[in-house]
């Protein structure tokens, strides 16, 4: 079974929701749609308070090259454009839409297979761009930019990331079990858009049902392959996945296209399918709400802009014993400081940790056991980087290759002295970015 070579850890899976089907969450009365939903420039609103908007209508256009437009997930009226707190509590502009529950949502007529076949690669890319599709694995990089293969490079493989190596999260698993056919069609569209000859879907061994349904769906196409991967974190990291599936190594500091690979998440492939076949922009996504104390954990289909509190209520309410809520998985997700904020395209889950497990244990001295070095998937020396960050030697950190760090957290996870290695490494990266 394939996997990546260097480093990695095996955190307990805790995928308690892996058998939950996708449940559609009822549309809330009010949606607060953030304007900044992807890496890059925030979108620019093109509606005014008082405007009535239809489901799927663009309400904010891309603000620059690396940016994606935002669409209304519902029929309704724009109430106001005002700042809303992000899950991290920072104020950012958002469009507040009051849902109009009287008017039923009418969906556009889907494109037929023939129509889709007639689309040129550029057509597909522009549809993907217009529909506001971003990488749904969590990085939220605009997919339009990713699919536009730079001049002089060729895409050989499209790798679809169904590894879902993060503990607790099962949203990709649920999607693969439900919509394998559509993911496969989305993959073929991405291949067509980029000119890649073959597509490979990497799934970790702990999702047998997803592997089966995806294999069945992909079996019809000779240029598609489902690759079963050994369970190891961070398998879903772009460079790790490329190595695991193709055995190629992305040069340090380069993009995956250097090895002829384009990596997209399964949810992104699904969104591409939805956009091209059904003419529906990206306005909703599946996210996992889980945690030992959550009354009704599950995989929910949630409209973009739904408040996090509503989502928690749908899962049975915020448990009494809540110490920490994580947006995303427990290894790379970010802690939520305010539930007033709303769901964005990049939110793959809400993990609620009880108080007893939410606090870090006291930090001890480094005993130089070398575990951080042996688990680092990028071959860095986290203990050394932390020492350098402690004395603010940013240049030395750069020399030690800190910018290669993918912030997977394996070092902090495995440190027996509970040292905040990743905290200091992130600080170093931040300072280096400032210097540049």
């Amino acid at each position, binding site marked *: 079974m394939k996997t990546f070579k260097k480093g990695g850890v095996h955190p307990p899976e805790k995928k308690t929701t892996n058998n939950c089907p996708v449940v559609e969450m009822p549309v809330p009365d009010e949606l607060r749609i953030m304007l900044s939903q992807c890496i890059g420039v925030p979108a620019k609103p093109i509606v005014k308070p008082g405007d009535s908007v239809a489901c799927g209508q663009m309400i904010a256009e891309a603000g620059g090259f690396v940016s994606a437009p935002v669409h209304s997930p519902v029929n309704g009226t724009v109430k106001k454009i005002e700042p809303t707190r992000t899950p991290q509590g920072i104020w950012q502009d958002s469009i507040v839409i009051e849902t109009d529950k009287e008017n039923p949502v009418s969906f556009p007529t889907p494109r037929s297979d023939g129509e889709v076949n007639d689309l040129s690669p550029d057509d597909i890319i522009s549809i993907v761009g217009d529909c506001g599709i971003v990488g749904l694995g969590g990085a939220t990089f605009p997919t339009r930019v990713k699919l536009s293969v730079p001049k002089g490079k060729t895409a050989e493989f499209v790798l679809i990331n169904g590894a879902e190596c993060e503990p607790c999260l099962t949203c990709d698993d649920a999607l693969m079990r439900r919509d394998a056919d559509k993911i496969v069609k989305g993959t073929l569209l991405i291949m067509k858009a980029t000119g890649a000859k073959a597509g490979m879907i990497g799934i970790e061994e702990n999702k047998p049902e997803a592997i089966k349904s995806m294999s069945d769906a992909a079996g019809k196409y000779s240029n598609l392959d489902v690759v079963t991967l050994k369970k190891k974190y961070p398998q879903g990291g772009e460079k790790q996945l490329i190595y695991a599936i193709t055995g190629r190594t992305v040069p340090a500091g380069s993009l995956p296209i250097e090895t002829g690979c384009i990596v997209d998440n399964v949810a992104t492939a699904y969104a591409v399918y939805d956009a091209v076949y059904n003419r529906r922009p990206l306005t909703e996504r599946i996210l996992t709400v889980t945690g030992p104390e959550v009354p009704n954990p599950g995989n929910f289909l949630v409209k973009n802009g739904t408040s996090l509190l509503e989502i928690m209520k749908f899962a049975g309410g915020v448990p009494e014993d809540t110490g920490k809520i994580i947006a995303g998985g427990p290894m790379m997700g970010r802690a939520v*400081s*305010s539930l007033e904020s709303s769901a964005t395209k990049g939110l793959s889950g809400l993990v609620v940790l009880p108080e007893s497990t939410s606090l870090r244990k006291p930090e001890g001295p480094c005993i130089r056991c070398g575990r951080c070095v042996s688990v680092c998937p990028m071959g860095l020396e986290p203990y050394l980087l932390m020492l350098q960050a402690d004395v603010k030697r940013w240049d030395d950190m750069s020399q030690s290759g800190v910018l290669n760090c993918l912030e997977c957290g394996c070092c902090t996870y495995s440190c027996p002295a509970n040292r905040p290695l990743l*905290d200091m490494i992130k*600080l170093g990266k931040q*300072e280096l970015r400032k210097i540049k």
Partner: protein
Amino acid sequence: MIIGISILVLGVIGVIAAIILFIAAKRFYVYEDPKIGEIEELLPGANCGGCGFSGCHAFAVECASAKSMDGLVCTGVNSEGMKKIADIVGLTPVANQRKVAIIKCSASCENRDPRNHYDGVRSCAIEASLYQGESDCIYGCLGCGDCVAACPFGAMQLNEGEELPHVDLDKCTGCGKCVEACPRNLCELSPIYSDRPIVWVACANRDRGPVAMKECGVACIGCTKCRKVCPNEAPDIKSFIAHIDQEKCISCGECIKACPRHTIKSTADPISAD
């Protein structure tokens, strides 16, 4: 006999080593202006960079070769010290407008209601990159003391239970290290005046009044009362926050009395120029 040989051998080795050392000293001799050393003696040696050069030595080198003292001011020495330095190089010293750091946040622990609990390295830079901070105010002091750690003169301190830095105005030289260190840009260098204390608005919250009021007990809400009572119209309100124009301020203290949020602060006395 053996002793004689030993002495002889060691003596010869000693002489050879001395010759090598002599040649090396001549061969690799680097001339350094003796003035540089003299100037460096007078400098604080904190390498704070407040002068704009990479450290005290670089400043001394610059002074020694300078044609005029324009722009050459060490924030760490008083005017008498600058005069001595100028004397060494035979130039006239430029008047040193002394500056001190002021903190544009006054939210000690009881004023900012912690909504969450930060668990990680005590570093403002990390906390600021992570999220809003422990209170609801996304502009205010995080209380981890990056500025305190950055101060080369030991002029800043965090008081127990308050988590807000205080500047010891006697020790502060206005080098600007804290300004660089603060991720929220709450440290500001303010010129001092011999005849009056500094009065400033100790807040940086740019949220609208009602929001700011909820977020912090001592946040400026942009109510303009300070401007109304000021005889000189020194406070200027922009994006819901007042800023006192030091050129116009006469330190009458009316605004301090009028501020409903107790946000405006003043130093106790005029600060001496040295």
